[in-house]
């Protein structure tokens, strides 16, 4: 069980290393263009 628990975390760690480094360039559905302009 200990090995399985460590392996589960290791999977996440690997996923983090290979995950995208930033948000996609496309417009995010949660962000209105005006809001993006305001935030910037």
């Amino acid at each position, binding site marked *: 069980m200990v090995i399985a628990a460590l392996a589960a975390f290791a999977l996440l760690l690997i996923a983090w290393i290979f995950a995208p480094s930033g948000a996609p360039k496309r417009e995010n559905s949660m962000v209105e263009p005006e809001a993006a302009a305001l935030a*910037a």
Partner: protein
Amino acid sequence: MPTIDSGDTAWVLTSAALVMLMTPGLALFYGGLVRRKNVLSTIMHSFFILGLVSVTWVLWGYTLAFGPDTGLGLIGGLDWLALEGVTGEPSEVYATTIPHLLFMAFQMMFAIITPALISGAFAERKRFKAFILFAVAWSTFVYAPIAHWVWSPDGWLFGLGVLDFAGGTVVHLSSGVAALVAALFIGRRTGLIEPATEPHDVPMTVLGAGLLWFGWFGFNAGSAVGANGLAATAFVTTNTAAAMAAITWVTISWLHKGTPSVLGAAIGAVAGLVAITPAAGFVTPAASILIGMGVGIVCYGAAQLRLRARVDDALDVFAVHGVGGAFGAIATGVFATAAVGGVDGLLRGNAGQLVTQLIGVGVVGIYSAATTGAILFLVNLVTPIRVTGDAEEAGLDLAQHGEIAYQP
């Protein structure tokens, strides 16, 4: 044979929950201090660490910090990997009147907030992926060893006699020094007109400071690991030092800049809480007033020096936690009273304790600085620590997380 005490257990359960609340409180404290385009990313640092270090602490952090020593007082063994052998029965070494699992959970909350404190130094420009890798490595290779040195009965600094009631060196000095190194490594934010940016939401920061102050009762009074007179002493010294530092900071800023700063009250209170942390169970309430005033003056000065320096420790983590933690650890060596915590300091004729405290401060500071630098270098090889200029310009909320905090 250790036996569970229901009063002690109830208090430490409560304290663990109080300390847990400090990390979301820190998220608000830091979140209010940054520009509005970076508030989510700043909050995310603390909130994600709440999840991240909760898991790593269970898997390997606790056994490295508090597990049976490997022989030199430097690190715990792997006997309690993934909490194997850590049960609802009391430990024979730590807090023998509460379940061992509860002691582990209480310590976990300290392990969580410590790397979260560092995040204030590289706010508004750190890549989230790099932040995760840094946090895992830092809590493993900096926090766990230092906690072992100072708090394990087999730790070499513990054996030397270094006093640290609730983490002045283990939590605050280590994270404060790491923050300074991180700020130097990552460089200054771009586009700053003034050395410091205007906070985007002061009420958020004050709310965060209030939650930190509240949670700190668990942090310090909980470190008595019992519902007893020592906990009451730590409770009173904690509140007194925070109060004195807050009103001292406000007074200094009033005289220096002409207005009594609300932000100064919040930051001053945190500085007082930091400084009393190592001393809370070793000094009298009267001494905590002097510690609060002293740290208010010293940390205010450190923050002003930082403004003049080229180091962009964005949220003054070093000035408050590094300087405040060192000040508190040294003050413990000055003001400690045997009638409170069993050890006398300089003012009670034990100059040796002050020397011991200075050694502890020096060792922890140097180790944290060197190891933090090495970790940052290695993480930077895996993924750039700093975001691109465009991302920094757009704000990390959008560039890193694809969200914004406030709808127009």
